[in-house]
């Protein structure tokens, strides 16, 4: 069991208001780590720190270190880091172009596609891996904005897969989806952990128990507990964890 990501004493603040407090946590290679916790507990902040999306925010300040394969991510080139650590947002954000173009957009910009002939293969593979191929193979040239929410979210997954990252961060990827679309996204996540390391933030405790290998419970910027998912759900060590997963919180 190799640590893919190691977080050491990470504290994050917005405008001097600290929302993560000396966090120590690791993510193991090829696992799905679920992160649960009530609103405002700092889950999104944590994810957006891992691929440095928060660096765009001027009010954001951070202390502590994060290592990806033993390399400090804060010393890395930002584009390289984000290519290795992809992120899926809560709301699907298709780019205003066709389905096909959405997928080859980043590989093209990153110089991963050299020949035009490779494009079709990359698009098909990414869509298949995101279990979307059968639904859209006949309308690759139509606008991605015209797909259903669930399809858009899987398109965003396919878009990430096309740049072949090492880690994928999911931020409540199913919050706007119906149960069937949710099941499809979960299915593809379990499929994906063969090749990728996954961090899944979810508001849905059941979802964490369904797909997570390990689960971490965040509360008010602190990591309360992290353990194998079965263990955490059957016999949590902390009282607060138990209250939260049994819905007795607050």
């Amino acid at each position, binding site marked *: 069991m190799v640590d893919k990501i190691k977080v050491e004493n990470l504290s994050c603040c917005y405008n001097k208001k600290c929302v993560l407090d000396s966090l120590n946590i690791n993510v193991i290679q090829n696992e799905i780590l679920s992160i649960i916790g009530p609103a405002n507990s700092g889950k999104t902040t944590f994810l957006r720190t891992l*691929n440095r*999306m928060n660096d*765009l925010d*001027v009010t954001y300040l951070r202390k502590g270190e994060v290592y990806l394969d033993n390399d400090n991510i804060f010393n890395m080139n930002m*584009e*390289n*880091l*984000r*290519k*290795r650590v*992809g*992120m899926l*947002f809560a*709301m699907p*954000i*298709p*780019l*205003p*172009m066709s389905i096909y173009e959405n997928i080859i*957009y*980043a590989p093209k*910009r*990153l110089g991963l596609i050299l020949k035009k002939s490779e494009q079709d293969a990359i698009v098909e593979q990414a869509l298949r891996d995101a279990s979307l191929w059968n639904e859209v193979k006949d309308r690759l040239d139509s*606008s991605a*904005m015209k797909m259903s929410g669930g399809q858009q979210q899987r398109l*965003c997954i396919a*878009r*990430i897969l096309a*740049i072949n990252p090492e880690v994928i961060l999911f931020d409540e990827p199913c919050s706007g989806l119906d149960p069937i679309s949710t099941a499809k996204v979960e299915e593809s996540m379990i499929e994906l952990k063969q090749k990728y390391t996954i961090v899944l933030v979810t508001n849905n405790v059941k979802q964490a128990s369904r797909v997570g290998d390990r689960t971490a419970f965040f509360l008010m910027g602190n990591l309360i507990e992290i353990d194998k998912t079965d263990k955490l759900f059957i016999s949590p060590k902390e009282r607060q964890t138990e209250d939260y997963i049994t819905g007795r919180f607050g």
Partner: protein
Amino acid sequence: MIKLSPKLSQKLSYSILFLATILAIVPVVVIIFTIIKNGASAITWDFLTSMPKDGMRTGGILPAVLGTFSIVTCAISITLPIGVFAAIYLNEYTRNNLLTRIIKLAIVNLAGVPSVVYGLFGLGIFVMFLKLGVSVIAGALTLSIMELPVIITTARGALNSVPYSFREASLSLGVSRWQTIRHIVLPNALPGILTGTILSIARISGETAPILFTASVFYVPHLPHSIFDQVMTLPYHLYIVSTQIPNMPKKIIFGTALVLLIMVLTISFMAIIARIYFRKHRKW
């Protein structure tokens, strides 16, 4: 205070609003109608394509049309790239601190400086200091400086209209900032920038004060050859034929006004068409 019944006050406010609208429209309609009525007969192919003759009293307005055309073309090709790049820099690269806020405020306010001030500025800097003389290029530079704040402001509006989430989605895939701007932000801001540019063209085509001292002259016996030539221009020509020459046929005056009017209205109309087109084809 007198208390009106709801029905009456409704009627009253309706009438006031209606009256205000009429007051706004009537003068425009009267002006346009007068110009068309008196000028339409002057407009012939010959009028548009020949030199003025007989001390401008007969002949055409070709040099003025071409002069205006060349100044406006030069001005827009100078001001558009600079304005768009400045807008990109201000919107996408600067952090929102006091200095940039002051710069942004200054740009918005520069758009309100009277055009004659720009004219005198152009005379001082371009015509005299840089020794460009009274020329197409001096007029174009003056107009482009005048129009720059407007272009920057419209371009910033167009850039802002592209949802921030598109930038985030692109950046999160490891695409660089400049590539995100080049391939996501700019293409989606282009409709707004284009429409704004067309309106700017319409606006500067009719401007007189900035080119009065920097590019326009009373009469040039030949068509413009180079950007260092002094030229005749439509707005200035209109001023001359209306006020500076005795015994001027009314037809020529109104004909010239009508050509200028049609030119500006056509350009504005193109902007409206472009806006409708882009709205129909917008992708999000």
